[in-house]
């Protein structure tokens, strides 16, 4: 079985210590993305990396951060502050020498809290284009966890994409009100299939299983999820934290770390967000749609096309 933390290897002891403090288990996709980017940097010898996960929301985040700050004295602490915003900011204030880099719905805080978020609405829009193009029934299903802004903006962008190519298509949205209940998510997707959906967007785990079972096409979310349904998963918006992590490493090493919004590093422009590889699934997408997706992708990268950020809960479409 794999050990959890990278043992420090000789010669790399100078590498700065980065710490991951995750409210959910790292198997949850959001924190999983952050964890993987940090792990990757550690594997490349750029940092030393340790982490604690499943800290939860019952008040333990503050203790963990304080203990880590006191004992391990890391150069930077990464994590997600959703549900633990105050704790993170309180501790950060007491340890100005440590870089606090947290996923957050709020802004950065002087002097040492930088924030990031997953801004994958752009690839989500591209997925919407594809969905609008491949649907035969003109009904598309989206199953999400909770209608929080981070989820809403992905879903809304996806719907906007659908509308661009297929204004008549109907998008069904279901929230299972849980981050982790794949059986419920699958059942929600099956309900959408019964209501006519033939393409599914899997914001949560479980939905792709429904697509596989019903022989339909689906989109993953957050990471490349092709392996969850080979032959069924077209693509999906992918969030990549590596640009953010590398930027912070540079800043920390250069002693230039500041409180800032690292949003840009999670967007398409800097490679923080992209469309997952097709794994040969292009063949299932009409030529013209594929061309449109390529075009929009280029336009987004070139700053010529803007995907609207809508954070209110998605309204059910006609």
């Amino acid at each position, binding site marked *: 079985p794999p*050990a959890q933390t990278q043992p420090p290897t000789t010669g790399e002891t100078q590498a700065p210590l980065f710490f991951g403090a995750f409210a959910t288990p790292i198997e949850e996709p959001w924190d999983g993305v952050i964890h993987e980017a940090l792990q990757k940097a550690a594997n490349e010898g750029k940092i030393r990396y340790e982490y*604690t996960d499943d800290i939860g929301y019952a*008040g333990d985040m503050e203790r963990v951060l304080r*203990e880590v700050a006191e004992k391990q004295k890391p150069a930077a602490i990464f994590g997600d502050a959703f*549900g633990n915003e105050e704790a993170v900011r309180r501790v950060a204030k007491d340890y100005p020498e440590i870089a606090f880099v947290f996923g957050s719905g709020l802004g950065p805080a002087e002097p040492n809290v930088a924030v990031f978020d997953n801004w994958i609405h752009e690839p989500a829009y591209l997925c919407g284009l594809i969905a609008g193009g491949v649907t035969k029934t003109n009904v598309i299903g989206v199953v999400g966890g909770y209608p929080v*802004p981070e989820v*809403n903006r992905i879903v809304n962008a996806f719907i906007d994409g659908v509308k661009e190519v297929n204004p008549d298509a109907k998008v069904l949205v279901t929230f299972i*009100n849980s981050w982790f209940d794949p059986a419920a998510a699958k059942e929600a997707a099956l309900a959408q299939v019964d209501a006519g959906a033939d393409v599914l967007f899997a914001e949560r785990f479980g939905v792709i299983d429904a697509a596989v079972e019903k022989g339909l096409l689906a989109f993953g979310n957050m990471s490349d999820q092709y392996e969850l349904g080979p032959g069924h998963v077209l693509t999906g918006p992918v969030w990549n934290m590596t640009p953010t992590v590398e930027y912070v490493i540079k800043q920390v090493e250069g002693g230039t770390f500041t409180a800032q919004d690292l949003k840009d590093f999670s967007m398409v422009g800097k490679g923080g967000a992209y469309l997952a590889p097709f794994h040969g699934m292009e063949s299932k997408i009409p030529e013209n749609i594929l061309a449109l997706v390529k075009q929009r992708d280029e336009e987004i990268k070139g700053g010529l096309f803007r995907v609207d950020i809508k954070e209110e809960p998605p309204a059910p479409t006609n």
Partner: protein
Amino acid sequence: MEAKRFPYQLVKSNTPPLWMRPLIPVLILLTTFLITAGLILTAQANPFRAYYFFLISPLSSQVSFLEVLVKSTPLMLTGVAVTFAFATGYYNIGAEGQLYAGAIAAAWLGIVLGGVPAAIAIPLMIIGGFLAGMAWALIPALLKVRLAVDEVVTTLLMNSIMAYIVSAILNGPWRDPTSGWPQSPEIAENTMFFKLIPRSRLHFGFIVGIVAIAVLWFILTQTSFGLKMRAVGLGKPAAQFAGINVGRTTLLAALISGGIAGIAGVSEVAGIQYHLIGDLSANYGYTGVIIATLGGLNAIGVFVASLFFGLIDTGAQTVSRAMGVPVYLGQVTQAVMLLVALGMYLLQRYRIVRRA
């Protein structure tokens, strides 16, 4: 013909021998260690070092020691809450839901009492949480007393209902307007529990917990209501025959139990979170059942058990971080310890004697 038998046997005795009492916790710890050491080894870690981080290191610095106390605070309160009920023979498994009822009240009061002096606001919140916990406990208690509906089941079900109520509130009217996250708006500054020690998280709730322990001790041993509670808990028909109003005693104990669980919710909202959130309680209500039982339904026992569980909770994260053992080791250890302790306390009621 007597078959050959083991020359020693366990004999029931009403009073455990004195020498055995201090030995029991040691035995529990040792057995737990032996059982969990295997798991720690499979995670490729050294069990002795793991236990050092588990049990010793949280006590080795002031900061982490205070954190142990912070973690014990809700456990003390739910432990006391459950003890009130169990001692009266009312098996309240609903402290979890009652805690949330108290938390909802505290969050609401914390929002509306902005500007009211803390000396008034905080007592009001505690009273409000107590009443809310009581109100949530009232339904199963009345069903039990009036209609003899089993409380184990109703209180358990009420926990699930409360979880959905909290979810409905947080996803509906109280969704945080700024973050959109399912959490209530922050309570006003003046309604937050003050810190007992600067730069620590140890807050006023700990004092409330200690007071609750003291109240439990006082009521159980010094008051006639406590004797009535115990009489009802140990023999309902006899208590009734002796003129104790069984229904009223049960109802009252159940309500006090719910109220104190509600205060646990207040303490978490006003001392730790400053919001109502869906994950406010890390199963403190259920752990309260365990703590009450391990504490032998008496005040001192509950106090010690809640400190100990606070220690393990704190230590688990330290072990995980320091040694790369999955953080779930803490949960496993608590469970093993509970089960071992259940077995051992039973042993305490026996003596080993040589067969005649």
